[in-house]
Protein backbone atom coordinates (compact mmCIF):
# COMPACT_ATOMS: atom_id res chain seq x y z
CA UNK A 1 0.00 0.00 0.00
CA UNK A 2 1.47 3.34 -0.86
CA UNK A 3 1.72 5.41 2.26
CA UNK A 4 1.53 9.12 2.33
CA UNK A 5 5.07 10.29 2.97
CA UNK A 6 4.80 12.53 5.94
CA UNK A 7 8.48 13.38 5.85
CA UNK A 8 8.10 14.98 2.43
CA UNK A 9 10.93 13.22 0.64
CA UNK A 10 10.80 11.04 -2.40
CA UNK A 11 13.19 8.76 -4.15
CA UNK A 12 13.87 9.91 -7.65
CA UNK A 13 16.46 9.25 -10.30
CA UNK A 14 18.80 11.67 -8.61
CA UNK A 15 18.46 10.19 -5.18
CA UNK A 16 16.36 11.35 -2.31
CA UNK A 17 14.70 14.64 -2.99
CA UNK A 18 12.76 16.78 -0.66
CA UNK A 19 9.28 17.33 -1.95
CA UNK A 20 8.20 20.89 -2.27
CA UNK A 21 4.89 21.51 -0.62
CA UNK A 22 2.19 20.76 -3.08
CA UNK A 23 0.94 24.28 -3.58
CA UNK A 24 4.37 25.53 -4.53
CA UNK A 25 5.34 22.68 -6.80
CA UNK A 26 5.24 23.05 -10.53
CA UNK A 27 4.25 20.34 -12.89
CA UNK A 28 7.78 19.09 -13.38
CA UNK A 29 8.33 18.58 -9.69
CA UNK A 30 4.99 16.95 -9.15
CA UNK A 31 5.78 14.48 -11.82
CA UNK A 32 8.76 13.23 -9.88
CA UNK A 33 6.67 12.26 -6.88
CA UNK A 34 6.56 8.59 -6.20
CA UNK A 35 3.20 7.01 -5.68
CA UNK A 36 0.27 5.70 -7.64
CA UNK A 37 -2.12 8.57 -7.68
CA UNK A 38 -1.37 11.48 -9.93
CA UNK A 39 -2.41 14.54 -7.99
CA UNK A 40 -2.33 17.35 -10.46
CA UNK A 41 -5.19 19.51 -11.49
CA UNK A 42 -6.38 19.40 -15.05
CA UNK A 43 -4.99 22.84 -15.72
CA UNK A 44 -1.55 21.76 -14.60
CA UNK A 45 -1.68 18.71 -16.80
CA UNK A 46 -2.70 20.80 -19.76
CA UNK A 47 0.25 23.06 -19.13
CA UNK A 48 2.71 20.17 -19.37
CA UNK A 49 1.65 19.62 -22.96
CA UNK A 50 3.64 22.62 -24.05
CA UNK A 51 6.81 21.72 -22.20
CA UNK A 52 9.82 20.40 -24.00
CA UNK A 53 10.10 16.81 -22.83
CA UNK A 54 13.22 16.19 -20.82
CA UNK A 55 14.97 12.94 -20.11
CA UNK A 56 13.25 12.10 -16.89
CA UNK A 57 9.87 13.50 -17.74
CA UNK A 58 7.00 11.22 -18.33
CA UNK A 59 4.04 11.70 -20.59
CA UNK A 60 0.52 12.22 -19.41
CA UNK A 61 -2.07 10.68 -21.65
CA UNK A 62 -5.74 11.33 -21.34
CA UNK A 63 -8.07 8.38 -21.74
CA UNK A 64 -11.75 9.18 -21.93
CA UNK A 65 -14.34 10.25 -21.02
CA UNK A 66 -15.52 9.18 -24.43
CA UNK A 67 -13.64 5.97 -24.99
CA UNK A 68 -14.89 2.53 -25.91
CA UNK A 69 -13.40 0.80 -22.95
CA UNK A 70 -13.83 3.03 -19.98
CA UNK A 71 -17.14 1.47 -19.11
CA UNK A 72 -19.07 4.64 -19.21
CA UNK A 73 -17.76 8.13 -18.82
CA UNK A 74 -14.65 7.55 -16.76
CA UNK A 75 -11.68 9.69 -17.56
CA UNK A 76 -8.21 8.52 -16.68
CA UNK A 77 -5.11 10.59 -16.91
CA UNK A 78 -2.33 8.11 -17.25
CA UNK A 79 1.24 9.07 -16.59
CA UNK A 80 3.24 6.93 -18.94
CA UNK A 81 6.84 5.97 -19.23
CA UNK A 82 6.82 4.50 -22.67
CA UNK A 83 3.89 2.19 -22.45
CA UNK A 84 4.12 1.53 -18.75
CA UNK A 85 1.61 3.24 -16.57
CA UNK A 86 3.14 4.94 -13.58
CA UNK A 87 0.54 7.06 -11.91
CA UNK A 88 -3.09 7.60 -12.69
CA UNK A 89 -5.62 10.23 -11.92
CA UNK A 90 -9.18 9.12 -12.34
CA UNK A 91 -11.44 12.05 -13.14
CA UNK A 92 -15.11 11.41 -12.58
CA UNK A 93 -18.21 13.51 -12.44
CA UNK A 94 -19.15 13.25 -16.09
CA UNK A 95 -22.38 11.53 -15.19
CA UNK A 96 -23.21 13.46 -12.04
CA UNK A 97 -26.96 13.66 -12.00
CA UNK A 98 -27.64 15.23 -8.64
CA UNK A 99 -29.58 12.18 -7.58
CA UNK A 100 -28.95 12.71 -3.91
CA UNK A 101 -30.34 16.22 -4.19
CA UNK A 102 -33.27 15.00 -6.24
CA UNK A 103 -33.84 12.31 -3.65
CA UNK A 104 -34.53 15.03 -1.11
CA UNK A 105 -37.47 16.23 -3.18
CA UNK A 106 -39.11 12.89 -3.95
CA UNK A 107 -41.31 10.97 -1.56
CA UNK A 108 -40.33 7.59 -0.22
CA UNK A 109 -42.52 5.90 -2.79
CA UNK A 110 -40.91 7.83 -5.63
CA UNK A 111 -37.46 7.27 -4.17
CA UNK A 112 -36.85 3.90 -5.84
CA UNK A 113 -37.38 5.43 -9.28
CA UNK A 114 -34.52 7.76 -8.52
CA UNK A 115 -32.04 5.38 -6.93
CA UNK A 116 -32.70 2.62 -9.40
CA UNK A 117 -30.92 4.63 -12.04
CA UNK A 118 -27.70 4.85 -10.10
CA UNK A 119 -26.29 1.38 -10.61
CA UNK A 120 -28.18 0.81 -13.81
CA UNK A 121 -26.74 -2.62 -14.46
CA UNK A 122 -28.29 -3.97 -11.27
CA UNK A 123 -31.16 -1.61 -10.57
CA UNK A 124 -33.07 -3.84 -8.19
CA UNK A 125 -30.27 -3.69 -5.65
CA UNK A 126 -30.51 0.07 -5.40
CA UNK A 127 -34.23 -0.20 -4.87
CA UNK A 128 -33.69 -2.92 -2.30
CA UNK A 129 -31.24 -0.96 -0.19
CA UNK A 130 -33.41 2.13 -0.34
CA UNK A 131 -36.47 0.15 0.69
CA UNK A 132 -34.61 -1.58 3.50
CA UNK A 133 -33.39 1.75 4.86
CA UNK A 134 -36.88 3.21 4.69
CA UNK A 135 -38.38 0.20 6.37
CA UNK A 136 -35.80 0.32 9.14
CA UNK A 137 -36.64 3.96 9.74
CA UNK A 138 -40.32 3.15 9.72
CA UNK A 139 -39.72 0.32 12.14
CA UNK A 140 -41.53 -2.22 9.96
CA UNK A 141 -38.46 -4.09 8.83
CA UNK A 142 -39.41 -7.11 10.90
CA UNK A 143 -42.96 -7.18 9.60
CA UNK A 144 -42.42 -7.45 5.88
CA UNK A 145 -44.26 -10.58 4.73
CA UNK A 146 -41.98 -13.53 3.97
CA UNK A 147 -43.29 -13.89 0.45
CA UNK A 148 -42.24 -10.32 -0.28
CA UNK A 149 -38.77 -10.96 1.07
CA UNK A 150 -38.37 -14.13 -0.95
CA UNK A 151 -39.57 -12.38 -4.09
CA UNK A 152 -37.02 -9.66 -3.43
CA UNK A 153 -34.32 -12.29 -3.12
CA UNK A 154 -35.42 -13.94 -6.32
CA UNK A 155 -35.34 -10.72 -8.28
CA UNK A 156 -32.03 -9.66 -6.82
CA UNK A 157 -30.37 -12.92 -7.67
CA UNK A 158 -31.73 -12.75 -11.20
CA UNK A 159 -30.38 -9.24 -11.40
CA UNK A 160 -27.02 -10.40 -10.11
CA UNK A 161 -26.95 -12.94 -12.90
CA UNK A 162 -27.74 -10.36 -15.55
CA UNK A 163 -25.17 -7.94 -14.15
CA UNK A 164 -22.44 -10.55 -14.11
CA UNK A 165 -23.36 -11.61 -17.63
CA UNK A 166 -22.93 -7.99 -18.61
CA UNK A 167 -19.54 -8.05 -16.95
CA UNK A 168 -18.54 -11.19 -18.82
CA UNK A 169 -19.66 -9.64 -22.07
CA UNK A 170 -17.83 -6.35 -21.60
CA UNK A 171 -14.77 -8.04 -20.18
CA UNK A 172 -14.55 -10.19 -23.26
CA UNK A 173 -15.13 -7.22 -25.53
CA UNK A 174 -12.42 -5.17 -23.84
CA UNK A 175 -9.94 -7.96 -24.30
CA UNK A 176 -10.90 -8.50 -27.89
CA UNK A 177 -13.16 -11.53 -27.53
CA UNK A 178 -16.00 -9.85 -29.36
CA UNK A 179 -18.03 -13.03 -29.58
CA UNK A 180 -18.23 -13.06 -25.80
CA UNK A 181 -20.02 -9.73 -26.03
CA UNK A 182 -22.72 -11.27 -28.15
CA UNK A 183 -22.96 -14.39 -26.00
CA UNK A 184 -23.22 -12.47 -22.78
CA UNK A 185 -25.94 -10.27 -24.19
CA UNK A 186 -27.79 -13.30 -25.47
CA UNK A 187 -28.14 -14.65 -21.94
CA UNK A 188 -28.77 -11.25 -20.49
CA UNK A 189 -31.67 -10.80 -22.91
CA UNK A 190 -33.30 -13.91 -21.53
CA UNK A 191 -32.95 -12.65 -18.01
CA UNK A 192 -34.21 -9.21 -18.96
CA UNK A 193 -37.16 -10.75 -20.73
CA UNK A 194 -38.00 -12.66 -17.56
CA UNK A 195 -37.67 -9.52 -15.47
CA UNK A 196 -39.90 -7.71 -17.91
CA UNK A 197 -42.52 -10.37 -17.49
CA UNK A 198 -42.36 -10.09 -13.73
CA UNK A 199 -41.80 -6.40 -13.15
CA UNK A 200 -43.03 -4.83 -16.35
CA UNK A 201 -39.77 -3.24 -17.42
CA UNK A 202 -36.48 -4.48 -18.76
CA UNK A 203 -34.43 -2.04 -16.74
CA UNK A 204 -34.94 0.49 -13.97
CA UNK A 205 -37.84 -1.48 -12.68
CA UNK A 206 -39.06 0.46 -9.63
CA UNK A 207 -40.45 -2.81 -8.37
CA UNK A 208 -38.97 -3.20 -4.92
CA UNK A 209 -40.63 -0.54 -2.83
CA UNK A 210 -40.77 0.21 0.87
CA UNK A 211 -43.19 -2.32 2.29
CA UNK A 212 -42.59 -5.14 -0.13
CA UNK A 213 -42.74 -5.38 -3.87
CA UNK A 214 -45.04 -3.59 -6.23
CA UNK A 215 -47.01 -6.57 -7.47
CA UNK A 216 -47.22 -10.29 -7.08
CA UNK A 217 -45.47 -12.68 -9.42
CA UNK A 218 -47.50 -13.25 -12.58
CA UNK A 219 -48.74 -16.61 -13.79
CA UNK A 220 -46.12 -18.63 -15.53
CA UNK A 221 -43.21 -17.07 -13.71
CA UNK A 222 -41.98 -20.41 -12.50
CA UNK A 223 -41.67 -21.74 -16.02
CA UNK A 224 -39.91 -18.58 -17.05
CA UNK A 225 -37.36 -18.89 -14.26
CA UNK A 226 -36.74 -22.56 -14.92
CA UNK A 227 -36.30 -21.83 -18.58
CA UNK A 228 -33.64 -19.20 -17.87
CA UNK A 229 -31.84 -21.48 -15.45
CA UNK A 230 -31.83 -24.41 -17.83
CA UNK A 231 -30.62 -22.17 -20.62
CA UNK A 232 -27.79 -20.57 -18.70
CA UNK A 233 -26.21 -23.60 -17.10
CA UNK A 234 -24.72 -25.22 -20.20
CA UNK A 235 -23.80 -21.85 -21.64
CA UNK A 236 -21.71 -20.99 -18.64
CA UNK A 237 -19.75 -24.11 -19.36
CA UNK A 238 -19.34 -22.83 -22.89
CA UNK A 239 -17.88 -19.64 -21.53
CA UNK A 240 -15.51 -21.65 -19.43
CA UNK A 241 -14.30 -23.28 -22.59
CA UNK A 242 -14.22 -20.06 -24.53
CA UNK A 243 -12.46 -17.96 -21.97
CA UNK A 244 -11.27 -19.56 -18.76
CA UNK A 245 -9.02 -22.17 -20.24
CA UNK A 246 -7.88 -20.10 -23.13
CA UNK A 247 -4.18 -19.20 -23.00
CA UNK A 248 -4.51 -15.74 -24.45
CA UNK A 249 -7.26 -14.80 -22.04
CA UNK A 250 -5.26 -16.11 -19.13
CA UNK A 251 -2.10 -14.36 -20.21
CA UNK A 252 -3.97 -11.10 -20.43
CA UNK A 253 -5.65 -11.38 -17.08
CA UNK A 254 -3.44 -13.39 -14.78
CA UNK A 255 -1.10 -11.28 -12.76
CA UNK A 256 -2.69 -8.11 -14.04
CA UNK A 257 -4.10 -5.54 -11.68
CA UNK A 258 -2.96 -7.28 -8.54
CA UNK A 259 -4.20 -5.94 -5.25
CA UNK A 260 -3.43 -7.39 -1.86
CA UNK A 261 -5.94 -7.91 0.90
CA UNK A 262 -4.46 -5.17 3.06
CA UNK A 263 -4.53 -2.70 0.22
CA UNK A 264 -8.08 -3.62 -0.60
CA UNK A 265 -9.23 -3.18 2.98
CA UNK A 266 -7.38 0.10 3.33
CA UNK A 267 -8.97 1.42 0.17
CA UNK A 268 -12.44 0.31 1.18
CA UNK A 269 -12.83 -2.26 -1.59
CA UNK A 270 -15.64 -4.75 -1.22
CA UNK A 271 -17.31 -7.35 -3.35
CA UNK A 272 -15.43 -9.36 -5.96
CA UNK A 273 -12.34 -7.19 -5.62
CA UNK A 274 -12.01 -7.97 -1.94
CA UNK A 275 -12.90 -11.60 -2.43
CA UNK A 276 -10.30 -11.96 -5.15
CA UNK A 277 -7.60 -11.19 -2.59
CA UNK A 278 -8.62 -14.18 -0.52
CA UNK A 279 -10.81 -12.57 2.11
CA UNK A 280 -14.16 -14.39 2.10
CA UNK A 281 -16.32 -11.37 2.90
CA UNK A 282 -19.80 -11.49 1.43
CA UNK A 283 -22.56 -9.56 3.13
CA UNK A 284 -25.07 -12.20 2.20
CA UNK A 285 -23.20 -14.69 4.33
CA UNK A 286 -21.56 -12.57 6.98
CA UNK A 287 -24.26 -10.02 7.73
CA UNK A 288 -27.27 -11.65 6.15
CA UNK A 289 -30.42 -9.78 5.23
CA UNK A 290 -33.68 -10.99 3.70
CA UNK A 291 -33.55 -14.78 3.90
CA UNK A 292 -29.98 -15.35 2.80
CA UNK A 293 -29.22 -17.28 5.95
CA UNK A 294 -31.73 -19.90 4.87
CA UNK A 295 -30.27 -20.70 1.48
CA UNK A 296 -27.07 -22.54 0.86
CA UNK A 297 -24.51 -21.05 -1.40
CA UNK A 298 -20.81 -20.43 -1.42
CA UNK A 299 -19.03 -17.11 -1.35
CA UNK A 300 -16.61 -17.43 -4.24
CA UNK A 301 -13.12 -16.44 -3.18
CA UNK A 302 -9.96 -16.00 -5.24
CA UNK A 303 -6.35 -16.15 -4.18
CA UNK A 304 -4.18 -13.90 -6.28
CA UNK A 305 -6.07 -10.65 -6.30
CA UNK A 306 -5.64 -10.25 -10.02
CA UNK A 307 -8.04 -9.58 -12.83
CA UNK A 308 -8.39 -13.25 -13.66
CA UNK A 309 -9.59 -14.05 -10.18
CA UNK A 310 -12.19 -11.34 -10.40
CA UNK A 311 -13.41 -12.73 -13.70
CA UNK A 312 -13.56 -16.25 -12.32
CA UNK A 313 -15.33 -15.07 -9.19
CA UNK A 314 -18.05 -13.39 -11.17
CA UNK A 315 -18.46 -16.32 -13.50
CA UNK A 316 -18.94 -18.64 -10.58
CA UNK A 317 -21.18 -16.22 -8.79
CA UNK A 318 -23.58 -16.64 -11.68
CA UNK A 319 -23.63 -20.35 -10.92
CA UNK A 320 -24.14 -19.68 -7.22
CA UNK A 321 -26.96 -17.29 -8.01
CA UNK A 322 -28.60 -19.94 -10.13
CA UNK A 323 -28.37 -22.35 -7.21
CA UNK A 324 -29.93 -19.77 -4.92
CA UNK A 325 -32.75 -19.19 -7.38
CA UNK A 326 -33.48 -22.90 -7.50
CA UNK A 327 -33.69 -22.97 -3.73
CA UNK A 328 -35.98 -19.97 -3.73
CA UNK A 329 -38.29 -21.75 -6.14
CA UNK A 330 -38.70 -24.46 -3.56
CA UNK A 331 -39.00 -22.17 -0.58
CA UNK A 332 -41.29 -19.42 -1.77
CA UNK A 333 -44.34 -19.33 0.49
CA UNK A 334 -47.79 -18.07 -0.25
CA UNK A 335 -48.86 -14.83 1.30
CA UNK A 336 -48.86 -11.09 0.82
CA UNK A 337 -46.45 -9.46 -1.50
CA UNK A 338 -46.34 -6.32 0.56
CA UNK A 339 -47.00 -5.34 4.10
CA UNK A 340 -50.61 -4.63 4.92
CA UNK A 341 -49.80 -1.63 7.06
CA UNK A 342 -52.21 0.96 5.76
CA UNK A 343 -49.90 3.84 6.55
CA UNK A 344 -47.41 2.59 4.02
CA UNK A 345 -49.22 0.47 1.51
CA UNK A 346 -51.76 1.71 -0.98
CA UNK A 347 -55.02 -0.21 -1.16
CA UNK A 348 -55.62 -2.85 -3.83
CA UNK A 349 -56.51 -1.26 -7.13
CA UNK A 350 -59.89 -2.92 -7.36
CA UNK A 351 -61.04 -1.36 -4.12
CA UNK A 352 -60.46 2.14 -5.40
CA UNK A 353 -63.52 1.83 -7.60
CA UNK A 354 -65.68 0.74 -4.70
CA UNK A 355 -64.66 2.64 -1.64
CA UNK A 356 -64.18 6.36 -1.14
CA UNK A 357 -61.77 5.81 1.72
CA UNK A 358 -59.64 3.60 -0.44
CA UNK A 359 -59.55 6.26 -3.12
CA UNK A 360 -58.51 8.95 -0.67
CA UNK A 361 -55.99 6.61 0.90
CA UNK A 362 -54.45 5.86 -2.48
CA UNK A 363 -54.45 9.53 -3.37
CA UNK A 364 -52.73 10.57 -0.18
CA UNK A 365 -50.06 7.94 -0.42
CA UNK A 366 -49.20 8.76 -3.99
CA UNK A 367 -49.31 12.52 -3.77
CA UNK A 368 -48.31 13.47 -0.25
CA UNK A 369 -46.48 10.29 0.56
CA UNK A 370 -46.28 8.59 3.90
CA UNK A 371 -44.36 10.19 6.72
CA UNK A 372 -41.37 8.43 8.17
CA UNK A 373 -40.38 8.95 11.80
CA UNK A 374 -37.24 10.97 12.34
CA UNK A 375 -33.92 9.26 12.75
CA UNK A 376 -30.96 8.07 10.75
CA UNK A 377 -29.94 4.64 9.62
CA UNK A 378 -27.40 2.91 7.41
CA UNK A 379 -28.25 -0.28 5.56
CA UNK A 380 -26.13 -2.26 3.16
CA UNK A 381 -26.61 -5.11 0.74
CA UNK A 382 -24.21 -7.11 -1.38
CA UNK A 383 -24.62 -5.87 -4.91
CA UNK A 384 -22.75 -7.45 -7.80
CA UNK A 385 -20.13 -4.76 -7.40
CA UNK A 386 -19.67 -4.84 -3.68
CA UNK A 387 -21.27 -3.31 -0.64
CA UNK A 388 -24.06 -1.02 -1.66
CA UNK A 389 -25.12 1.08 1.28
CA UNK A 390 -27.80 3.64 1.95
CA UNK A 391 -27.50 6.24 4.70
CA UNK A 392 -30.81 7.88 5.23
CA UNK A 393 -31.78 10.70 7.55
CA UNK A 394 -35.39 11.50 8.13
CA UNK A 395 -36.94 14.46 9.90
CA UNK A 396 -40.45 13.10 10.12
CA UNK A 397 -41.68 14.43 6.79
CA UNK A 398 -42.72 12.60 3.66
CA UNK A 399 -39.39 13.08 1.87
CA UNK A 400 -35.99 11.90 3.00
CA UNK A 401 -33.98 14.68 4.61
CA UNK A 402 -30.75 13.19 3.36
CA UNK A 403 -30.32 10.16 1.22
CA UNK A 404 -26.80 9.04 0.54
CA UNK A 405 -25.99 5.93 -1.41
CA UNK A 406 -22.59 4.41 -0.80
CA UNK A 407 -21.79 3.15 -4.25
CA UNK A 408 -19.14 0.45 -4.38
CA UNK A 409 -17.86 1.58 -7.76
CA UNK A 410 -17.15 5.04 -6.38
CA UNK A 411 -14.80 3.57 -3.82
CA UNK A 412 -13.28 1.15 -6.31
CA UNK A 413 -12.32 3.94 -8.68
CA UNK A 414 -9.96 5.05 -5.93
CA UNK A 415 -8.30 1.66 -6.05
CA UNK A 416 -7.69 1.90 -9.79
CA UNK A 417 -4.38 3.81 -9.60
CA UNK A 418 -2.95 1.18 -7.31
CA UNK A 419 -3.95 -1.60 -9.61
CA UNK A 420 -2.76 0.10 -12.76
CA UNK A 421 0.69 1.02 -11.55
CA UNK A 422 3.43 -0.77 -13.38
CA UNK A 423 1.19 -2.25 -16.02
CA UNK A 424 0.80 -1.48 -19.67
CA UNK A 425 -1.97 0.58 -21.19
CA UNK A 426 -3.56 -2.58 -22.51
CA UNK A 427 -3.56 -3.90 -18.98
CA UNK A 428 -5.26 -0.71 -17.90
CA UNK A 429 -8.18 -1.63 -20.11
CA UNK A 430 -8.29 -5.10 -18.63
CA UNK A 431 -8.12 -3.82 -15.06
CA UNK A 432 -10.85 -1.23 -15.49
CA UNK A 433 -12.99 -3.94 -16.94
CA UNK A 434 -12.25 -6.27 -14.05
CA UNK A 435 -13.23 -3.63 -11.51
CA UNK A 436 -16.55 -3.37 -13.39
CA UNK A 437 -17.43 0.18 -12.44
CA UNK A 438 -20.83 1.54 -13.30
CA UNK A 439 -20.51 5.26 -13.64
CA UNK A 440 -24.09 5.88 -12.63
CA UNK A 441 -23.26 4.93 -9.08
CA UNK A 442 -19.82 6.50 -9.17
CA UNK A 443 -21.17 9.90 -10.01
CA UNK A 444 -24.74 9.67 -8.84
Amino acid at each position, binding site marked *: MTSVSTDATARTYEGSQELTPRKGAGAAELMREVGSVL*RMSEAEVAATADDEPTEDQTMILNMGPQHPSTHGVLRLMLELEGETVLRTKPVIGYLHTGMEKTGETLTYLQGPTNVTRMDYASPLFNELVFSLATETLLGIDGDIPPRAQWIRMLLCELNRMSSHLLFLATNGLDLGAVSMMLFGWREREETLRLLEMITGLRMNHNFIRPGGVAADLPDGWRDGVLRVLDLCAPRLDEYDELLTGQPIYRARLQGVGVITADEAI*ALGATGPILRSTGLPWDLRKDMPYLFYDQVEFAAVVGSYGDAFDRYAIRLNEVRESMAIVRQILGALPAGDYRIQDRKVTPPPRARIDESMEALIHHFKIFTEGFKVPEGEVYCAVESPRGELGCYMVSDGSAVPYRMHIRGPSFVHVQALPHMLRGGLIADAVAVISSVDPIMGEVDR
Partner: protein
Amino acid sequence: MSDTQATSGFGKESVADETGATTAQAETRFGVPATSSRGQLVLHPSRDQLVDLVRTLRDDEGYRVCIDLTAVDYLAYEAPRRLPPDVTPERFEVVVGLLSHDTHERLRLRVQVPADDATCPSLFDVHPGTEALEREVYDMYGIEFTDHPDLSRILMPEDWDGFPLRKDHPVGAIPVQFKGVQNAR
Protein backbone atom coordinates in the same frame (compact mmCIF):
# COMPACT_ATOMS: atom_id res chain seq x y z
CA MET B 1 -40.01 -23.90 4.64
CA SER B 2 -39.17 -20.40 5.62
CA ASP B 3 -39.28 -18.66 8.91
CA THR B 4 -41.96 -16.14 9.42
CA GLN B 5 -39.37 -13.52 10.15
CA ALA B 6 -36.62 -12.64 7.79
CA THR B 7 -33.28 -11.64 9.12
CA SER B 8 -33.56 -7.93 8.90
CA GLY B 9 -30.05 -7.40 10.13
CA PHE B 10 -30.30 -3.63 10.22
CA GLY B 11 -32.76 -2.38 12.77
CA LYS B 12 -31.50 -4.84 15.27
CA GLU B 13 -33.83 -5.62 18.11
CA SER B 14 -31.23 -4.60 20.62
CA VAL B 15 -34.32 -3.07 22.05
CA ALA B 16 -35.12 -0.14 24.21
CA ASP B 17 -34.03 -1.48 27.54
CA GLU B 18 -30.87 -2.98 26.18
CA THR B 19 -30.01 0.12 24.21
CA GLY B 20 -29.14 2.07 27.33
CA ALA B 21 -26.77 -0.65 28.41
CA THR B 22 -24.99 -0.87 25.05
CA THR B 23 -24.52 2.86 24.71
CA ALA B 24 -23.22 3.16 28.26
CA GLN B 25 -20.76 0.36 27.57
CA ALA B 26 -19.68 2.05 24.38
CA GLU B 27 -19.12 5.34 26.14
CA THR B 28 -16.82 3.83 28.69
CA ARG B 29 -15.04 1.75 26.11
CA PHE B 30 -14.44 4.41 23.51
CA GLY B 31 -14.49 7.50 25.65
CA VAL B 32 -16.91 9.52 23.54
CA PRO B 33 -20.65 10.02 23.88
CA ALA B 34 -22.70 7.31 22.26
CA THR B 35 -26.29 6.90 21.15
CA SER B 36 -28.25 4.23 19.42
CA SER B 37 -30.30 4.80 16.31
CA ARG B 38 -32.72 2.04 15.32
CA GLY B 39 -30.44 -0.38 17.09
CA GLN B 40 -27.27 0.85 15.38
CA LEU B 41 -24.52 2.16 17.63
CA VAL B 42 -23.44 5.72 16.93
CA LEU B 43 -20.49 7.53 18.50
CA HIS B 44 -20.22 11.30 18.69
CA PRO B 45 -16.58 12.35 18.80
CA SER B 46 -15.57 15.95 18.49
CA ARG B 47 -13.46 17.08 15.58
CA ASP B 48 -10.31 16.90 17.66
CA GLN B 49 -11.05 13.40 18.88
CA LEU B 50 -11.97 12.03 15.47
CA VAL B 51 -8.66 10.93 13.99
CA ASP B 52 -7.35 9.37 17.18
CA LEU B 53 -10.60 7.57 17.78
CA VAL B 54 -10.67 6.16 14.26
CA ARG B 55 -7.06 5.10 14.56
CA THR B 56 -7.78 3.35 17.84
CA LEU B 57 -10.81 1.69 16.38
CA ARG B 58 -8.78 0.48 13.46
CA ASP B 59 -5.77 -0.78 15.37
CA ASP B 60 -7.21 -2.01 18.65
CA GLU B 61 -10.88 -2.67 18.07
CA GLY B 62 -10.74 -4.30 14.67
CA TYR B 63 -12.76 -1.78 12.66
CA ARG B 64 -10.38 -1.98 9.75
CA VAL B 65 -12.65 -0.72 7.03
CA CYS B 66 -13.98 2.78 6.60
CA ILE B 67 -16.99 1.86 4.61
CA ASP B 68 -18.54 5.27 4.10
CA LEU B 69 -17.91 8.93 4.77
CA THR B 70 -20.56 11.47 4.07
CA ALA B 71 -22.09 14.60 5.51
CA VAL B 72 -25.49 16.03 6.34
CA ASP B 73 -26.61 19.65 6.39
CA TYR B 74 -29.05 20.14 9.23
CA LEU B 75 -30.03 23.66 8.29
CA ALA B 76 -33.62 22.83 7.45
CA TYR B 77 -34.10 19.96 9.89
CA GLU B 78 -37.53 20.21 11.38
CA ALA B 79 -37.34 17.61 14.09
CA PRO B 80 -35.42 17.84 17.37
CA ARG B 81 -31.81 16.78 17.01
CA ARG B 82 -31.28 13.68 19.07
CA LEU B 83 -27.75 14.09 20.35
CA PRO B 84 -26.10 13.23 23.64
CA PRO B 85 -26.29 16.01 26.23
CA ASP B 86 -22.67 17.12 26.03
CA VAL B 87 -22.62 17.41 22.23
CA THR B 88 -23.58 20.79 20.77
CA PRO B 89 -25.47 20.48 17.52
CA GLU B 90 -23.92 22.29 14.58
CA ARG B 91 -25.09 22.86 11.05
CA PHE B 92 -23.03 20.17 9.39
CA GLU B 93 -22.34 16.64 10.46
CA VAL B 94 -19.68 14.43 8.99
CA VAL B 95 -20.78 10.82 9.22
CA VAL B 96 -18.18 8.06 9.13
CA GLY B 97 -19.15 4.43 8.84
CA LEU B 98 -16.80 1.71 10.01
CA LEU B 99 -16.96 -2.03 9.60
CA SER B 100 -15.24 -4.86 11.39
CA HIS B 101 -14.65 -8.02 9.40
CA ASP B 102 -13.91 -10.01 12.54
CA THR B 103 -16.90 -9.20 14.68
CA HIS B 104 -19.26 -8.47 11.76
CA GLU B 105 -20.30 -5.22 13.34
CA ARG B 106 -20.77 -1.74 12.10
CA LEU B 107 -20.11 1.48 13.88
CA ARG B 108 -21.09 4.99 12.95
CA LEU B 109 -19.41 8.21 13.97
CA ARG B 110 -21.11 11.57 13.72
CA VAL B 111 -18.91 14.62 14.02
CA GLN B 112 -20.42 18.07 14.41
CA VAL B 113 -18.94 20.69 12.09
CA PRO B 114 -19.96 24.34 12.56
CA ALA B 115 -21.03 26.39 9.59
CA ASP B 116 -18.62 29.26 10.16
CA ASP B 117 -15.61 26.95 10.48
CA ALA B 118 -16.42 24.19 8.05
CA THR B 119 -13.30 22.13 8.47
CA CYS B 120 -12.67 18.65 9.71
CA PRO B 121 -9.50 16.63 10.05
CA SER B 122 -8.94 14.21 7.22
CA LEU B 123 -8.99 10.47 7.78
CA PHE B 124 -6.75 9.82 4.80
CA ASP B 125 -3.76 8.80 6.89
CA VAL B 126 -5.78 6.25 8.80
CA HIS B 127 -7.94 5.01 5.92
CA PRO B 128 -6.64 5.89 2.44
CA GLY B 129 -9.97 4.82 1.08
CA THR B 130 -11.52 8.05 2.32
CA GLU B 131 -9.75 10.16 -0.26
CA ALA B 132 -12.53 10.23 -2.82
CA LEU B 133 -15.26 10.24 -0.19
CA GLU B 134 -13.83 13.35 1.48
CA ARG B 135 -13.44 15.05 -1.86
CA GLU B 136 -17.09 14.39 -2.53
CA VAL B 137 -18.07 15.88 0.82
CA TYR B 138 -15.98 18.93 0.03
CA ASP B 139 -17.53 19.22 -3.40
CA MET B 140 -21.08 18.86 -2.19
CA TYR B 141 -20.92 20.67 1.15
CA GLY B 142 -17.82 22.81 1.19
CA ILE B 143 -16.41 21.12 4.28
CA GLU B 144 -12.63 21.26 4.02
CA PHE B 145 -10.60 18.38 5.27
CA THR B 146 -7.25 19.41 6.66
CA ASP B 147 -4.25 17.33 5.61
CA HIS B 148 -6.09 15.85 2.71
CA PRO B 149 -3.61 15.25 -0.14
CA ASP B 150 -5.75 16.71 -2.90
CA LEU B 151 -8.90 18.48 -1.86
CA SER B 152 -10.53 19.42 -5.14
CA ARG B 153 -13.91 19.02 -6.70
CA ILE B 154 -14.63 15.53 -7.85
CA LEU B 155 -18.18 15.47 -9.19
CA MET B 156 -18.84 19.01 -10.32
CA PRO B 157 -16.65 20.85 -12.83
CA GLU B 158 -13.62 22.36 -11.18
CA ASP B 159 -14.82 25.89 -11.67
CA TRP B 160 -18.33 25.33 -10.31
CA ASP B 161 -19.64 27.88 -7.86
CA GLY B 162 -21.52 26.73 -4.85
CA PHE B 163 -21.96 23.52 -2.92
CA PRO B 164 -24.93 21.62 -4.35
CA LEU B 165 -26.06 19.46 -1.45
CA ARG B 166 -26.29 22.31 1.01
CA LYS B 167 -29.84 23.07 1.91
CA ASP B 168 -29.57 26.67 0.77
CA HIS B 169 -28.46 25.60 -2.69
CA PRO B 170 -31.49 25.24 -4.94
CA VAL B 171 -32.29 22.04 -6.76
CA GLY B 172 -32.02 24.00 -9.97
CA ALA B 173 -35.24 22.80 -11.49
CA ILE B 174 -36.41 24.80 -14.46
CA PRO B 175 -40.14 25.35 -14.77
CA VAL B 176 -41.49 23.15 -17.51
CA GLN B 177 -44.55 23.80 -19.56
CA PHE B 178 -45.82 20.75 -21.34
CA LYS B 179 -47.11 21.40 -24.81
CA GLY B 180 -49.72 19.23 -26.46
CA VAL B 181 -48.26 16.01 -27.76
CA GLN B 182 -48.83 15.54 -31.48
CA ASN B 183 -48.25 11.83 -31.70
CA ALA B 184 -50.60 10.91 -28.90
CA ARG B 185 -51.97 7.44 -29.35
